[in-house]
């Protein structure tokens, strides 16, 4: 037998970069995990479970940690969410499970659900255990999935449970989409994302990398497959549309994050301006600091009350020493050979000033795709319209989920979308429907 395909065999993020981005939330030791697990009240119909887009049965997996059944805990998580490891690190749990913990109501710290989940998932990885399900006998149906991000991965894994063949196509050389390339390394290391995805080919999911689907290929896929899942995410970061934007030294947040995670970017110039104040903007600003920038300034046209970043991300940015220029917007990028300064206007009084910078990172939101798929499915403001319960688009054989349908949310939302879409596809193709959650636990 040939060696199984291991995505994590690819060159990892350089060690020096890893050292600059240590875990924001370090792993729990067993000594710490068990008392924390015992602190969980084991709520009935728990709000943390309802708050999780993938409905991980949180009290159940925590109870299993407390009992010493860590393998069972990991299976409980993976039953609901095949990217349970990534989600334990990348999820904004303050507004999800941990935000819903009933202990808030009695003035206590919520249970550290994310770190407990990571504890179980790390143990699962260390044990080299497979995903806790086997594919059903082949149904004869085939589905093509475009994009190898979390939505497609979750969809493909769930399809295999129904015996449906699944082939994932991605333009990049490695799977995971933003899970691999777009999340700050101190939250989710690239190597961890790939290591987790290593388990998915074992279910029989096929991958085709370095493949951009054009119109002709799409026609071919339509002809040879029973359904198509679009997990294409969002497009490039918006441009500012001001003078000087083409100068060397202007980049965008996603390129910077993908660059340092893959080892293409190792350092940062000393003076950095980040345009925008969303979560990705903050990731890019902090990355610049960690890569050696001396002064990082975030520029936002409105005030701190209007930013789209989570409150805890803003607090983190402040702790890292990021400087904020509120009510300020760029007018032009100045420089001859490369970026030298940013011309700024204060939105409060229209006064203008210059900020000398060496690099400018754009982070003002991603555009949507406008290509072959737009002819196939209905969209609204660039987003693919779906039935939330089934992931079905206006085209009955096309399903979709993740950022391309919700405009850009979290990994866990994409996983939930992908799983629901798989159930929708299975219902369409085989007339069967598994329960999305609280599934059988025979394994």
């Amino acid at each position, binding site marked *: 037998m040939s060696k199984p395909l291991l995505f994590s065999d690819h060159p990892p993020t350089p060690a020096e970069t890893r050292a600059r981005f240590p875990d924001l939330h370090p792993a729990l030791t067993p000594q710490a995990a068990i008392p924390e697990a015992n602190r969980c009240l*084991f*709520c009935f119909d728990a709000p943390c479970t309802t708050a999780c887009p993938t*409905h991980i049965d949180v009290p159940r997996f925590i109870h299993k940690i407390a009992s010493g059944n860590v393998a069972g805990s990991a299976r409980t998580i993976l039953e609901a969410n095949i990217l349970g490891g990534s989600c334990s690190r990348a999820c904004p749990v303050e507004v999800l499970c941990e935000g819903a913990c009933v202990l808030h109501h009695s003035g206590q710290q919520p249970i550290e659900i994310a770190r407990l989940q990571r504890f179980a998932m790390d143990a699962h990885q260390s044990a080299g255990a497979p995903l806790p399900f086997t594919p059903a006998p082949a149904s004869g149906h085939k589905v093509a999935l475009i994009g190898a991000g979390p939505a497609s991965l979750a969809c493909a894994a769930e399809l295999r449970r129904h015996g449906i063949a699944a082939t994932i196509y991605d333009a990049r050389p490695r799977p995971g989409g933003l899970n691999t390339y777009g999340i700050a390394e101190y939250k989710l290391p690239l190597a961890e994302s790939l290591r987790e995805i290593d388990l998915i080919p074992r279910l029989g999911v096929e991958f085709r990398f370095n493949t951009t689907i054009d119109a002709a290929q799409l026609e071919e896929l339509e002809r040879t497959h029973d359904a198509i899942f679009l997990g294409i995410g969002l497009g490039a970061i918006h441009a500012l549309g001001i003078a000087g934007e083409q100068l060397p030294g202007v980049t965008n947040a996603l390129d910077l994050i993908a660059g340092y995670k893959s080892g293409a970017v190792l350092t940062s110039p000393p003076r950095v301006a980040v345009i925008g104040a969303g979560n990705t903007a903050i990731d890019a600003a902090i990355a610049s600091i960690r890569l050696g920038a001396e002064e990082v300034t975030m520029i936002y046209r409105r005030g701190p009350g209007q930013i*789209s970043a989570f409150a805890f991300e803003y607090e983190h940015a402040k702790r890292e020493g990021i400087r904020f220029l509120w009510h300020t917007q760029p007018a032009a990028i100045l420089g001859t050979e490369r970026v030298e300064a940013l011309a700024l206007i204060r939105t409060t009084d229209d006064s203008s000033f210059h900020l000398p910078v060496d690099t400018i990172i754009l982070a003002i939101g991603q555009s949507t795709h406008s290509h072959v798929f737009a002819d196939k499915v209905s969209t609204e403001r660039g987003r693919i319209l779906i039935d939330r319960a089934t992931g079905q688009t206006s085209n009955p054989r096309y399903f979709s989920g993740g950022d391309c349908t919700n405009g850009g949310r979290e990994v866990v*939302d994409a996983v*939930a979308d992908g799983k629901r879409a798989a159930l929708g596809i299975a219902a369409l193709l085989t007339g069967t429907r598994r329960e999305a959650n609280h599934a059988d636990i025979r394994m």
Partner: protein
Amino acid sequence: MPTLECNFSGIKCLNPFWLASAPPTNCGEQVMRAFDAGWGGAVWKTIGEPITNVSSRYSSIDWAGQRMMGLNNIELISDRPIATNLREIAEVKRRYPKHVVIASLMVESKREAWHEIVARAEDAGADGLELNFGCPHGMSERGMGSAVGQVPEYAEQITYWVKERARTPVIVKLTPNITDIRMAARAAKRGGADALSAINTINSITGIDLDTLVPNPNVDGLSSHGGYCGPAVKPIALNMVQQINADPASVLPLSGIGGIGSWRDAAEFILLGCGNVQVCTAAMHYGYRIVEDMADGLLEWMRQKGFETIEDFRGLSLPNVREWKHLNLNYKIVARIDAAKCIGCQLCYTACWDGAHQCIHLDRTLPTPDTTRTPAQIQAVSSTRITTTPIPKLDDAGPQTAGTPLDRIPRVDEHECVGCNLCSLVCPVEECITMERIDNMPPQTWEERTASPTATH
């Protein structure tokens, strides 16, 4: 100002806190440090012909992340020569004349042997003697310890022999490994004992190592039953203490033992009639220093309650323990949930449905009460709910700060509630679920009800 000074069976005590006969009282150096820490007395680790111990000796039960909820041991009596122990007792008494030293004794069941050890212990200066009729492991196989305590005739006979010679108070330590502890207590009393102490440790196997399949503690691949103690045994000890103190044929000054680790525990044993208490596991867990809060906390409670001495509250709870047939059948309470305190964990709901009488419901936000929805139906609805991560500025959701949502606060159906307490016991919030009295019938006991000629029951 209240005082902890007390008198136990004629022995004057600085306070009611004694260390029980066990590893914390193995030698003079330990006992003197314990007295420095504040212990009023120590029952010396049982003296007898020196034995050989095994290793290991202890094992424990952890519970919900807490260590040593219950402890078990297979250690025998003192492994040091009798003369060494007695010489150290003499030294301790010379240096700490106001502190109590009790010699715990165990020798073979012969009159001469007991006469000799009694005389030697008293000559060394012991303030009293405790007869170890309780040790459940090892020594019992040699006809001593609980082998004596389990046969009332033997216990009576040995007590009698000891009393023939003893000049100091004789305390008989009782084993709980018996169907009715009053049989042993009565025997000791018939034999002339001045006082009793209870309970000794309980026969136990604490658990099995699931890798090696050998029970704990492991002695070269084998184990043996040991004596169980610690917080886990307190309810058993309290019951036995009550049984002894409520029985006129048993009652004597009683030194309470079993899971005592705090002033609260001590107060409870004294309320059931104990003259003082003995502590072991808590001192083994945290050291002698725990006695400071035992004394401080008990004095504070006495101040609040207006008790000047231990005698002021000793036995006050005894009249409140009665046979079931004397309980009021017409007393009726129901659970009330304080919605302002409820955090929405719904443990009361699941406990009532699965463990009690299905009278708590999740229907506060329904148009009309619905007592037919099962837990499974409620969970099924939740599992199909579609949730997304909220985006600041775009979505309203976020951490709930406005209090528990009404649909998560359970409702008690007071007509169906039997007043069992279970919901209030599982509720993690203090004073959130209270049991409220609603009866309006005159009291009637089962005994009274069945005495009437038209009785139905």
